[in-house]
């Protein structure tokens, strides 16, 4: 597609359930990022994939959070045993080769844990 696509756009889940959030980056982009945006706050870095290198997971807040990426395409962010504090908008971004610094963001998945 023309831009970064995220699904679902909205997700309501019960506390304790697992959720999977999907990101389709721009075709050909080697780098993919996940960020979290809590209400009224800026974005928090979660994880960064670059090509076939080991991902930078330094922003994942707990071991309930994990992410995978298939080659240089789709990524899935999984949150296990969701808690109310996980409620946020989860944003995915992708960028081109390592020298291309502009990250293009998707519109996000709004996760509500009830």
């Amino acid at each position: 597609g023309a831009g970064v696509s995220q699904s679902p756009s909205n997700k309501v889940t019960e506390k304790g359930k697992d959720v999977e959030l999907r990101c389709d980056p721009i075709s050909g982009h080697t780098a993919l990022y996940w960020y979290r945006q809590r209400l009224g706050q800026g974005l928090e870095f979660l994880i960064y994939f670059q090509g076939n290198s080991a991902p930078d997971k330094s922003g994942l807040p707990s071991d309930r959070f994990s992410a995978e990426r298939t080659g240089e395409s789709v990524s899935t962010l999984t949150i296990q045993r969701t808690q109310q504090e996980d409620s946020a908008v989860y944003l995915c971004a992708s960028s081109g080769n390592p020298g291309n610094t502009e990250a293009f963001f998707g519109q996000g998945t709004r996760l509500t844990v009830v």
Partner: protein
Amino acid sequence: AQSVTQPDIHITVSEGASLELRCNYSYGATPYLFWYVQSPGQGLQLLLKYFSGDTLVQGIKGFEAEFKRSQSSFNLRKPSVHWSDAAEYFCAVGADGGYNKLIFGAGTRLAVHP
């Protein structure tokens, strides 16, 4: 730890007035600096970035920003605001001197009065 401060949570200006959004960062060396805009229902869009060289950077939509090392600031400016500029603006700094992982400020919400 690195941080980005946007002192103004909300700003209201009249259409046609000038605008300055403040951003201060903490980092020992010269970082990579970014301004993003988030319009309602849309993803984040890069307005401009500073890497090196000329400290006055021009961006899209008539925005510019000036890097001032002595003040650790990267303020965003526009000489004449349009109603369509109403949005949330985020300043970001590249973590650890890089640009793949960004640290965002909490954002400034701009309202424009006709």
